[in-house]
């Protein structure tokens, strides 16, 4: 927000609400507030990690950013251009700049198309190159993601999960995007293959200056690839900070609980776990006040109803929700009085 350089992606107060119909005679029964007022930005060449439990709205946020879903309100700016309300037709030339990689490459690759056809499709849609040139570009892409040129003639189902994810990455790279939204790109893979794909993503970022929004539930993986990390709970961000900071010094109770739940591959590191009760509450009828305070039955929950729980800065670059149930009194004082910012 005080950045000199304009961010590549700037999302402000984004909301994605889905209408719910219910009852014997289906009628409007409310909204699922999947994304409920999220603001964030991503700089060129930066990775922003996005973590949270299933159902917290992180995938919906990712899809809305690449405009696979229509936001209800708020704004998405890509290099200063507001893409929030653009029609699909008007978006098409801009789509070159932002792409997406999905969790399950088996579901996002058409089994009836050869790998060549899958990777070449973006070139055809955008009218790039003739047949021979496209073929050459596909071969370069395959080579770049570590697959042999012969892979082009085969079909996606002939490949293993890790190789399929490489195909998905090659397709996403085809138009030289600036931003790639990676939605759980390695969670379906075995650890040895996961590390290969993570290495590939890190190398590609270095070589092409890519920015990533990296959505995952594996917090160790997110820490590894991210410059900054945002923690999402029930449609809202509760904390956002540089990756090192958030893991070393989490301030929000939910972030602390999430971090303490990571199993450590070291039998000697027996850390105390913060065990949460229950699950993420329903986003159809979210609690009026602090959603996490409600889950924890926090004594100060009443105080959070009607209070402004938006993110504030407690240290340079370290943002946390001003939630009386979830942060320390000191932090709350800093946020409420705006003082003490070192």
């Amino acid at each position, binding site marked *: 927000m005080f950045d000199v350089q304009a961010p590549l992606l700037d999302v402000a107060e984004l909301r994605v609400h889905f209408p719910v119909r219910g009852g014997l005679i289906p009628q409007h029964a409310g909204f699922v507030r999947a994304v409920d007022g999220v603001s964030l930005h991503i700089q060129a060449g930066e990775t922003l990690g996005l973590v949270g*439990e299933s159902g917290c709205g992180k995938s919906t946020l990712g899809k809305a950013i690449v405009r696979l879903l229509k936001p209800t309100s708020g704004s998405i700016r890509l290099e200063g251009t507001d893409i929030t309300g653009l029609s699909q037709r008007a978006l098409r030339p801009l789509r070159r700049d932002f792409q997406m990689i999905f969790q399950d490459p088996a579901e996002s690759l058409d089994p009836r198309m050869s790998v060549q056809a899958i990777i070449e499709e973006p070139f055809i849609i955008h009218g790039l190159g003739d047949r021979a040139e496209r073929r050459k570009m596909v071969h370069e892409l395959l080579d770049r993601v570590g697959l042999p040129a012969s892979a082009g003639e085969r079909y996606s189902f002939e490949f293993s999960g890790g190789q399929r994810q490489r195909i998905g990455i090659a397709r996403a790279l085809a138009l030289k995007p600036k931003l790639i939204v990676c939605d759980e790109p390695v969670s379906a893979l075995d650890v*040895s293959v996961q590390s290969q794909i993570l290495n590939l993503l890190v190398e590609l970022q270095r070589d092409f200056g890519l920015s990533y929004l990296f959505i995952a539930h*594996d917090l160790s993986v997110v820490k*590894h*690839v*991210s410059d900054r990390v945002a923690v999402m709970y029930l449609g809202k961000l509760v904390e956002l900070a540089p990756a090192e900071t958030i893991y070393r010094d989490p301030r929000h109770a939910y972030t602390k609980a999430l971090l303490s739940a990571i199993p*450590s*591959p070291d039998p000697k590191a027996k850390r105390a776990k913060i065990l*949460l009760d229950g*699950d993420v509450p329903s986003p159809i009828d979210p609690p009026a006040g602090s959603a996490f305070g409600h889950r924890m039955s926090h004594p100060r929950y009443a105080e959070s109803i009607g209070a402004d729980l938006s993110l504030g800065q407690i240290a340079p670059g370290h943002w946390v929700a001003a939630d009386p149930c979830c942060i320390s009194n000191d932090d709350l004082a800093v946020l409420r009085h705006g003082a003490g910012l070192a």
Partner: protein
Amino acid sequence: MSPPAEIILEVDKLITSFETERGMLRAVDQVSFSVPRGKTVGIVGESGCGKSVTAMSIIRLLPQPAGRILGGQVRFKGIDLLRADDAEMQRVRGGDIGVIFQEPMTALNPVHRIGRQVAEVFRIHKKLSKRDAWDAATEMLQRVRIPDPATRMMDYPHQLSGGMRQRIVIALALACKPSLLIADEPTTALDVTVQAQILDLMKRLQDEIGMSIILITHDLGVIAETCDEVVVMYAGRVVERASAAALFEHPRHAYTRGLLESIPTLETPSKSLLKTIPGMVASLADHVHGCRFCQRMGRSAGASNERPQLAEVAPGHWVETCPLCSGEH
């Protein structure tokens, strides 16, 4: 060292094959390990390495007719499970051996209420009356910490969250206070926070009942936090077997080291290149006599030599003796 605990389950040179279009595939190839009373033994390895087939062989729930147990012994409290008749196996399964599968939705019947499904276990195994079984089931739901169990008994599986469903499956598995629980990826489909709840619950119930657990997972973090002993499987074989402490401190097999080094931890420098294991799990269709991991690494030792044998390199620490893969780094 404490005196050796009583062995509750002993798997000895188990061989399981699948009949496929490409011929007989050995999914489990002479696997041996034992489970002491009250302890947790983890089986770890990548997908397709034979972890689940090993578990399913123990309780003889292999897909039929493709899966066949070709050899070995499984001794559970003095019974040879591989030679037990069907009536005996039905008594053991769900009775003295409880099973939890990865996806709770497939383990539960979507058209029956939770209460009926949990009560059924008591009706069949404990021969309780309808009313007593219902009460026992409600109490069981309470023990797996399901809030408001009397109401939840009337729910259908789809009305519960993934974590709650997995609790129901745990309630089913533990209803008869089994001596052994086989948990096949019990937390893989769950969030880390819910995973922590479920692992904690399993640990508490283990202490209450005094049962042993076989925990199958690909997550080395889960292994480190919950297991006493670990069996590392690769391509249908056990490549290393040790106490959890020894395995994480001194992994001897190159495959174990590869697995451990390829996961980023909170201490790994950000965006540094992670170590990888080249290639992928060997196809069982390639009949390899030598070291299967050498074969994956493209080393000639995998091609011709005879099969490496497990050797005890330290007390309780067994490793497949391949000149290139075993040894202390």
